[in-house]
């Protein structure tokens, strides 16, 4: 096993843990952190394959992913704060106002 394969393996394990976090946790903040974990796992795979193919483009893409993640965190946390003001809770099961 070379280092690229190992990092790709690590990336898929971390991504799966992030998916489990989104599926299992009920706090909006924890779900959001798990999404960040999944983004980070994808970045690891990008850098690993950029290293393997001796290309810089993978690292450039990671840079853009990080910028988009920063924008996403700013808007997402603003949404969570606004929801907390009206519902007094960050539990996603309490947000059932659209349920028929």
């Amino acid at each position, binding site marked *: 096993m070379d280092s690229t394969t190992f990092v790709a393996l690590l990336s898929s394990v971390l991504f799966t843990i992030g998916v489990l976090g989104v*599926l299992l946790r009920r706090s909006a903040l924890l779900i959001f952190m798990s999404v960040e974990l999944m983004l980070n796992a994808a970045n690891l795979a990008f850098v690993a394959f950029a290293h393997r193919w001796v290309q810089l483009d993978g690292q450039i893409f990671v840079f853009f992913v990080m910028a988009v993640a920063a924008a996403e965190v700013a808007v997402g946390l603003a949404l969570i704060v606004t929801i907390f003001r009206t519902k007094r809770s960050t539990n996603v099961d309490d947000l059932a106002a659209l349920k028929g």
Partner: protein
Amino acid sequence: MTPDLPILIVLGAVSIASALGLLLSRNAIYAALFLVLNFGVGAVIYLVLNAPFIAVVQVSVYAGAIMVLFLFVIMLLGAERLSPGENPPGISFQRPLAIALGGVLLGLALYALFVRQPPTTATALADSSPTAIGLSLFGPYLFPFEVVSILLLVAMVGAVVLTRNR
């Protein structure tokens, strides 16, 4: 077997352990700190993989800015205590189902990794200094770079509008 592999195995073990800590912790503050540890280990992995610029950006943007924002919001809302019985009784099948589906996802990823072997190449080191990254960002990637700057501006305005007190 490459010389980097033992270092990567140790880093990977810490990385997976901190991700599991995020998944299982009962306190949102502890979960956020586990995620900071995970991002820090990720930065060291980037250094091993010959990506020093990405490693520094990872520490300053992810482990710095984004996680400080998370901790700030958790403490602002006072939402660090997570209820022990998180699942309401109606959807108790959710946990085993989620674990089974996660196992399927991991199996698919491993299948894609190990059954379809890519050809091996010579591992010469690319020039990944910040100079080379800057030349690439302001050369062929100039348009996406400008789009990202507009995206960040829109996100900033959106966050201000959403949290404004009316």
